[in-house]
């Protein structure tokens, strides 16, 4: 088995995440799908880091994790504040910037 199978798996995970973002309505589930896409990219980075014999890919995956953590914190705070004002976490309901 060659390490390229990891890339295939990561492509499949990324595609599933992208389809989930398009299909699901709950904002939190949409967010989880975005996380899945970030994770798939991380798997690609780690695999390429191994294939190329250099650790830079792992460093990049580390930075992606940090940025993902920051993104999740702010995004979930936005979702809770939207839920507090309009009692809904559906992405269809929040169609106005004001009120």
């Amino acid at each position, binding site marked *: 088995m060659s390490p390229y199978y*990891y890339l295939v798996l990561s492509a499949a995970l990324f595609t599933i995440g992208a389809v989930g973002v398009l299909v699901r309505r709950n904002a939190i589930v949409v967010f989880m799908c975005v996380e*899945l896409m970030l994770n798939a990219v991380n798997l690609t980075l780690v695999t390429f880091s191994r294939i190329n014999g250099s650790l830079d890919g792992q460093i990049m995956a580390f930075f992606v994790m940090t940025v993902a953590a920051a993104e999740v914190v702010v995004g979930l705070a936005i979702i809770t504040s939207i839920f507090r004002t309009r009692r809904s*976490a559906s992405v269809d309901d929040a169609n106005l910037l004001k009120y």
Partner: protein
Amino acid sequence: MHEVLLAAGPLRHGTVPLGEAIAFWVLGPIALAGAIGMVLLRNAVHSALSLVATMGCLGAFYLIQQGPFLGLVQIIVYTGAIMILFLFVLMIVGRDASDSLVETLRGQRWAAALLGVGFALLVAIGIGRAVSPVTPTDLNSPNAGGNNVHSIAALLFTRYLFAFELTSALLIVAAVGAMVLAHVEREGPRPSQKRLARERIRSGRPQPLPGPGVLSQHNAIGTPALLPDGSVARESVMVGSMESQEERQALPTPSAGEGGFE
């Protein structure tokens, strides 16, 4: 040590060792099933749990791909912190946790599925064309001399030092931003116990609202309590958890078999 435990090892002529191949074929389907389950499961808490399974499998992949530091960080940060945060917010948002089945855009699901298949083909062709002439090496020389953690630290604090500092600034900004967004300003002074008691007596209902009781099957705030004869206690539904008066009126009246006396 971890090479022995996790069957991670150097690539031989571009192929992974047998133990790693077995681990991949066991964990890979679990990761895929978790991802598919996350998209397909109706309940958001179930989605979060299947995503935890996927992320755990990815952490194991990092471990066996000669990245023990990243694998442990994945398990600690993603499954330990981020998914717990997701679950906390799901508990706060609670009632709206399940998706609505109403399709606002006609044919959106089919279009999304088509797009997904097309994208998968595109990526597969890209990978096939990009990697075929490359002979894979491995991380033995960067990981040698100490270990993976030392090598990553050496890179992180020399070549990537500026990005590392920027990350710390980003994390501080994110924490402050989350605090500002989630903070609720109290309007007026905190109500005293005396005032609360007076309001309660004057409200015409001094006794507490009926609890879910032994006859109901759920204790979610959107589920009404059942009275001993099997009918719905309307006072038990929290104000605000029902969107409108019509929705309150449309509460299900349980049939003879549901929760009532047999």
